[in-house]
């Protein structure tokens, strides 16, 4: 909202004085100190993160290409948000649990979910083909905000299982709930804040503020920085440079540690940017300027790690190795996608209930007979 005449109908814009955000690596690849947050990741660990970032982007780009070629119905790219996802995803311990939206491909990668599995939903062969319990990574959730409550409930389950604040670091666990800037307007997300606060639930709310909810800029959801929302519910909030994988890792690690120790929830606002369209169905030229994109491209989450490693000991071999891996994984995704079996319509009758109903069994049987009648006819 830049028209001052609209100031009384639309609140004061939140742009202007943006607060400090936690940053440990500048866009130029320089390390920064922060009074509260630091990272003990050594160069090898940073290389690992770099690899995660590059592979995430490659998976994402490949999926976008597959959609363009008609192999996927739609794809929601995480382009530009890789650092937020990899930084937070790598802060998780195996016993932790992550509740994603539909965009957390980088987190899925960190949780060991075969990227191919992510494609099922978008290709229309299933609605989530991985085992959430095995991977500690919930189903993609499309209804905006719903998973924030699921995460909080799961965290309450951890409390009841005695794996919060027990002092045993190999057991104590926490939950992370992902959602976007738009989601902060939903009742469910705010109810999750109430619950988490009241029950002191071990949950980290990780909001990727990518500046847009489809075509709506962040000003349509809030007039103050989002991380401040937490203060209204009585738990800490922090804004981190969402394009800085080190800072995201450090801030999320600290928040998860707090949660596992029994000190309750934290809201992390990862300040980042959706560099692509909302989904492959979207046309952002209708509502945003290229300028903005150019500014954010200068803050690319991968370029800065590359710059940092360039200045450090990483050599061409390392980068070439990562590229090779990326090519392999892209091929895996592409080939796997093309050969993904279509589901059988008859299977859906068996998936509705744990204990199937006689009605459904009958419907299945009748439908099978109906389908068979065509077989005969041909």
């Amino acid at each position, binding site marked *: 909202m830049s028209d001052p005449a609209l100031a009384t109908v639309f609140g004061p814009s939140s742009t202007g004085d943006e607060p400090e955000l936690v940053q440990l690596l500048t866009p130029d690849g320089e390390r920064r100190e922060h009074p509260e947050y630091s990272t003990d990741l050594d160069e090898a660990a940073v290389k690992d993160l770099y690899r995660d970032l590059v592979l995430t982007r490659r998976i994402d780009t490949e999926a976008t290409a597959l959609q363009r070629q008609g192999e996927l119905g739609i794809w929601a790219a995480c382009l530009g948000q890789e650092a937020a996802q990899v930084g937070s995803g790598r802060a998780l311990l195996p016993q932790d649990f992550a*509740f994603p939206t539909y965009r957390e491909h980088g987190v899925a990668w960190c949780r060991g979910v075969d990227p191919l599995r992510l494609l099922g939903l978008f290709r229309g062969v*299933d*609605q*989530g*083909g991985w*085992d*959430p*319990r095995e991977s500690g990574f*919930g*189903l993609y959730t499309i*209804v905006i905000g*719903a998973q*924030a*409550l*699921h*995460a*909080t*409930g*799961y*965290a*309450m*389950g*951890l*409390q*009841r*299982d005695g794996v919060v604040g027990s002092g045993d670091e190999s057991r104590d666990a926490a*939950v992370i709930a992902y959602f976007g800037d738009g989601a902060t307007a939903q*009742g*469910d997300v705010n*109810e*999750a804040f*109430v*619950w988490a606060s*009241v029950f002191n639930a071990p949950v980290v709310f990780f909001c990727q503020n990518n500046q847009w909810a489809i075509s709506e800029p962040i000003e349509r959801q809030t007039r103050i920085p989002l991380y401040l929302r937490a203060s209204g519910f009585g738990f800490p909030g922090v804004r981190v440079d969402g394009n800085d994988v080190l800072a995201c890792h450090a801030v999320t690690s600290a928040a998860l540690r707090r949660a596992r120790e029994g000190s309750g929830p934290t809201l992390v606002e990862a300040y980042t940017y959706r560099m692509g369209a909302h989904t492959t169905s979207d046309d952002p030229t209708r509502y945003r300027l290229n300028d903005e994109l150019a500014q954010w491209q200068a803050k690319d989450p991968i370029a800065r790690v590359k710059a940092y490693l360039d200045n450090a000991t990483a050599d061409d071999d390392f980068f070439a190795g990562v590229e090779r891996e990326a090519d392999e994984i892209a091929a895996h995704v592409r080939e796997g996608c093309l050969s993904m079996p279509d589901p059988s319509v008859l299977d*859906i009758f068996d*998936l*509705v*209930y*744990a*204990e199937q*109903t*006689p*009605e*459904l069994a009958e419907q299945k049987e009748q439908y099978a007979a109906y389908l068979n009648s065509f077989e005969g006819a041909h």
Partner: protein
Amino acid sequence: MAQITLAKALTNGLRAAMESDPKVLIMGEDVGKLGGVFRVTDGLQKDFGEERVIDTPLAESGILGTAVGLAMRGYRPVCEIQFDGFVYPAYDQIVSQVAKLHFRSLGKLPMPIVVRIPFGGGIGAVEHHSESPEAQFAHTAGLKVVVVSNPADAYFMIQQAIASDDPVVFFEPKRRYWEKAELDESAEPVPLHSSRVVREGTDATVMAYGPMVKTVLEAAIAAEEEGRSLEVIDLRTLSPLDMGPVAESVRKTGHAVVVHEAVVNLGLGAELAARIGESCFYALEAPVLRVGGFDTPYPPSRVEEEYLPDLDRVLDAVDRSLAY
């Protein structure tokens, strides 16, 4: 055998379920010290602690949404919705999450959640406290829906619902909470998803569930005095419907009347009429008639006795059916 109220039978059923499975939790508004506004959870927090009987913040979507997470972690949450009219804020979590997660996860995330809803009118309450929203849930694939009508069913069905690995929306007839009947806790319960002939008859079949079962039974007694023999079916399960006993009865009587408090339009009577039409077409001597709420919001309580189906309206429908 002692007489027990429907409310107390539920309490006992909940207690038994909690005793036999430590994963069973109770969540809701005022379910703790107060024991719920209908006292159905009376004493449970005292005995099972605040971690298992959870007074939640005042938000129904929060109750169901956190229940989903707890279920994913292996718990079996029994969520109390304080009154029928307050289930709607949780509607999204129920129909888009609870109902679908088993399906969406290819069976990996069962949702053993029970949503207890005291429902229906007749208690002189203010607006939003007398709703009958069962059709909305029965229409939603992925949910199972049952309704209890008497203390014995209440005792067993709540335990069966909790034991079910599928989500069950569990309707309790609030105007019958204080009615008593004998309960033999050692009896062998019939399956959860079965309907039951509760009175045999030959002239017409009258189906009901929850609070209307008693009304219909009273109507059947009155009808008998006029020489009409009504077969009464307590449907008990609305999703899935158990059409076996219904079809058998209608084939015998040729006349079918469905009674519920919910508005007739798109209520359970519609589905029963359609299915009876399909399964008993040649046996039907009259169209399936429906007795239920008019197509209005639930009215102020001073007229609810006229709004709700009663003995006379049931008999009137039976008469109309028999007159065909």
